[in-house]
């Protein structure tokens, strides 16, 4: 079963892919869909919670920082299971230029520090076109697993 917006670049079965306007009001729906997906692929309740919060923080960061004075852009949320590496991969991509963090007592920095606290690895990859945040969570060991 394929979730998320259709017609986007051939999303494989079982993966999650949403593209939405980078607006705060759109994120709760994505968060709930992601929670449902993460539970269904077999992550523990604790990891589902961590994955959902970290992914939400990445999306919120895009909403707040990606599109400065332009009209609103979009963000892409993707999630898939990497069977080979035994992990879940979540990416959040926007196509804007991140504003430098505001000097407001470090309040905004908490989002990024949360992401780092919730994932074993998180990478933020800026490009000329935008930014992708990539996060991983290990899949639980399957009983009677193949090699």
């Amino acid at each position: 079963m394929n979730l998320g917006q259709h017609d986007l670049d051939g999303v494989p079965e079982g993966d999650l892919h949403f593209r939405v306007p980078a607006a705060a009001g759109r994120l709760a729906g994505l968060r709930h869909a992601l929670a449902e997906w993460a539970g269904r692929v077999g992550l523990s309740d604790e990891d589902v919670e961590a994955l959902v919060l970290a992914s939400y923080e990445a999306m919120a960061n895009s909403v707040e920082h990606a599109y400065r004075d332009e009209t609103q852009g979009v963000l892409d949320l993707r999630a898939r299971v990497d069977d080979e590496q035994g992990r879940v991969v979540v990416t959040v991509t926007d196509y804007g230029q991140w504003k430098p963090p505001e000097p407001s007592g470090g309040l905004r920095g908490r989002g990024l520090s949360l992401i780092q606290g919730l994932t074993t690895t998180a990478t933020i990859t800026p490009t000329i076109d935008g930014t992708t945040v990539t996060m991983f969570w290990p899949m639980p060991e399957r009983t009677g697993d193949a090699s």
Partner: protein
Amino acid sequence: MSSEPFHDAGTNQPAPGLSVLVVPHGEAVVLNVAGEIDLATAPQLGESINAAMAQQPETLVVDLSDVDFLASAGMAVLIGCHQQAQGNVRFRIVATGSATFRPMELTGMTEEISIFPTRDEALTAD
């Protein structure tokens, strides 16, 4: 702590946004917060706290026991309100568990703000 799934995958209900119920307790005011605190709902939380703060209670308790999602936008509001309260109102939070206490612990908020596991403790502590 509860072993309930983070989201009930069986139903397809959209989660509620945010609700804040203000309950006076003598010299204190308790805000019963329920639902999800994120970028979209954090301003509403801030407004509720500010309105309660304007009444100048001795103690203001923000009870997050019924909150099942807390994002950094919500934490920023709580910290801002705490800073505003300094010297005027005793600002306390009630939170336990992985949805609320753990994120606050991860960002070091637990060092800055008094957080209690129950409302009773928040109300009766010195």
